[in-house]
């Protein structure tokens, strides 16, 4: 029997599948999901492991207030909204003064457009090797730079502004949201930094209400804000001021309440000068009961072990689901052959050869598998656009 007969059998198979489009699509989809799920899960776990280990190994030590070490690592490395106790900024200054390490303070409490606002200093961007793709870094209070994903999702550019989120509807004592001026956008780094907004520590403290500027109000500048006058002093309406903005003119009046060393931060990244300095500093800080020192890579390894235990379980479930799906698809195909008994008898009576007959049935199965595999490959490709640390976020 010639190759052309087999080619015609494949064409017949294709015609049959397209004629029963709904049934074929359903089988392809079910089979595709069975193929895609384990592949996507495996790919995400692998990428997640690589991404999380890389970031944690690049962060030698993290200092925080006593609490959960996992929470501290997730909040300081991936800016996940973990509830962290704050501690004074003076801890960071003390580490710098020890000359054993460089400390990078992090204020992690604020959010803007539902993205984490990380108050730090420009040293953080240098430490992480982040470059500015567009614009410049933040330089003064009220300025910020956006992670690449934040810029992409909000469509904001340098020169635009982004408003911080109010802490809560019932937070009547809190400050107004702050309008942050965007000075730059970070280059894409496939890390948690892509999804964060970075600003000066002082900006974070203003957002948290630890510092403020005074706004001059008179009829000439903004007549709508002026409610009246009391013994020559203007009375401003709070209701008509939906936010605060730090302009260069207003910065002169910026001041913080309390001693500068007492202003709060939530974490410090510590970069020891060398191994010996790290050992000395660790020994000193480990002794303290009012602080928690963690090595992120150890904590992350622990988290990943947990994730992979769950991953193995999920893998087992997926395998069982896949096997069940394949069994159902097998049954559907067997039933399909039975339903097509008349048609196959016709082909046999007309004189189809055994080889062509086998080609006809096998090519139908192969076409279904090929399309299902394409769904699998596309799903894996599409999953590569998901954040590499998605597994960590989901596990959290």
């Amino acid at each position: 029997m010639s190759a052309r007969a087999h080619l015609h059998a494949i064409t017949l198979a294709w015609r049959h599948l397209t004629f029963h489009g709904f049934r074929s699509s359903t089988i392809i989809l079910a089979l595709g999901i069975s193929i895609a799920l384990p592949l996507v899960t495996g790919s995400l776990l692998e990428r997640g492991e690589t991404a999380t280990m890389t970031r944690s190994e690049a962060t030698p030590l993290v200092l925080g207030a006593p609490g959960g070490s996992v929470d501290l690592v997730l909040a300081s490395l991936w800016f996940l909204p973990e509830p962290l106790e704050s501690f004074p900024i003076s801890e960071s200054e003390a580490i710098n003064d020890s000359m054993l390490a460089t400390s990078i303070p992090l204020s992690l409490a604020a959010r803007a457009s539902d993205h984490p606002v990380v108050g730090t200093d420009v040293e953080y961007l240098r430490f992480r090797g982040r470059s500015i793709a567009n614009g410049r870094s933040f330089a003064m209070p009220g300025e910020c730079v956006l992670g690449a994903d934040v810029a992409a999702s909000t469509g904001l550019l340098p020169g635009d502004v982004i408003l911080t989120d109010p802490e809560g509807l019932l937070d009547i004592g809190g400050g107004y949201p702050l309008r942050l001026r965007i000075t730059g956008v970070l280059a894409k780094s496939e890390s948690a930094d892509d999804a964060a907004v970075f600003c000066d520590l002082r900006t974070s403290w203003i957002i948290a209400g630890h510092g403020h500027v005074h706004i001059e109000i008179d009829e000439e500048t903004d007549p709508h804000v002026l409610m009246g006058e009391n013994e020559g002093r203007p009375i401003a309406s709070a209701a008509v001021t939906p936010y605060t903005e730090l302009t260069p003119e207003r910065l002169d009046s910026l001041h913080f309440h309390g001693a500068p060393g007492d202003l709060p931060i939530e974490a410090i990244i510590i970069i020891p000068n060398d191994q010996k300095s790290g050992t000395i500093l660790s020994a000193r800080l480990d002794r303290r009961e009012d602080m928690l020192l963690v090595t992120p890579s150890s904590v992350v390894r622990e988290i990943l072990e947990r994730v992979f235990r769950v991953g193995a379980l999920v893998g087992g479930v997926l395998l069982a689901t896949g096997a069940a799906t394949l069994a159902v698809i097998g049954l559907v195909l067997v039933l399909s052959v039975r339903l097509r008994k008349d048609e196959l008898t016709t082909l046999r009576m007309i004189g189809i050869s055994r080889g062509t007959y086998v080609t006809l049935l096998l090519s139908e199965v192969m076409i279904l598998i090929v399309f299902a595999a394409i769904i699998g490959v596309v799903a894996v490709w599409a999953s590569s656009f998901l954040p590499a640390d998605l597994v960590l976020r989901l596990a959290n």
Partner: protein
Amino acid sequence: MPHSEQLLKIRDLDFSYPGTSFRLHLDEFVLESGRTKALIGRSGCGKSTLLDLACGIKTPRDGTVEFEGRDIAEIGDEARRLLRLESVGLVFQEFRLLEYLTVLDSILLPIRLSGRTVTSDIRERAHELARRAGIEALLKRRPQRLSQGERQRAAICRALIGTPRMVLADEPTGNLDPATAESVLDLLFEQVADAQAALLVITHDHEILGRFDEVFDLSEKNLAGIPPKAGAS
């Protein structure tokens, strides 16, 4: 064609279905090129079985079925399938068109299954057959959108596309109204005459027997007789 006179020759045929009382026993049955023969007989006498034996769908337990001088029981299953594809045209009572193929693709099916190229000549022949069958305008339709008569016409075109030397039809007008049945028979006879093929038609309609060169009553010729309750017809 060395045995052009006797295209199909069956001798001392003995066939039975395992587990049933049915048995077909024929001394001789001959079908000559260019001749038409009606196969009649009571239900269960083995008419359809004889058609299956004549084209190698079934093989006898005993005796010989020769097609163009070759015993088709001896040539093997693959060769019998190829023989059906290339030399025999089959027309069924229930049409047996594939629901997912258009009329044109249905007509061309035997050509494609035999691995031959669908040349422009063959395509032209398909159009010509369809035109003579009055279904040329329906070539892009699928069977669901055809009347019974149109389906049988399409099935006849499919049986004739390979210019078979023998056409076997099992009650081709059984499901058709008298007017449609008449026109379908006209088509069949006309095409077979054009191709100088042999035609063997099973029928229960004694009104049409006059159109055939010969009539073969299997009820009389089956030496095994007819079981009281036959399992096959």
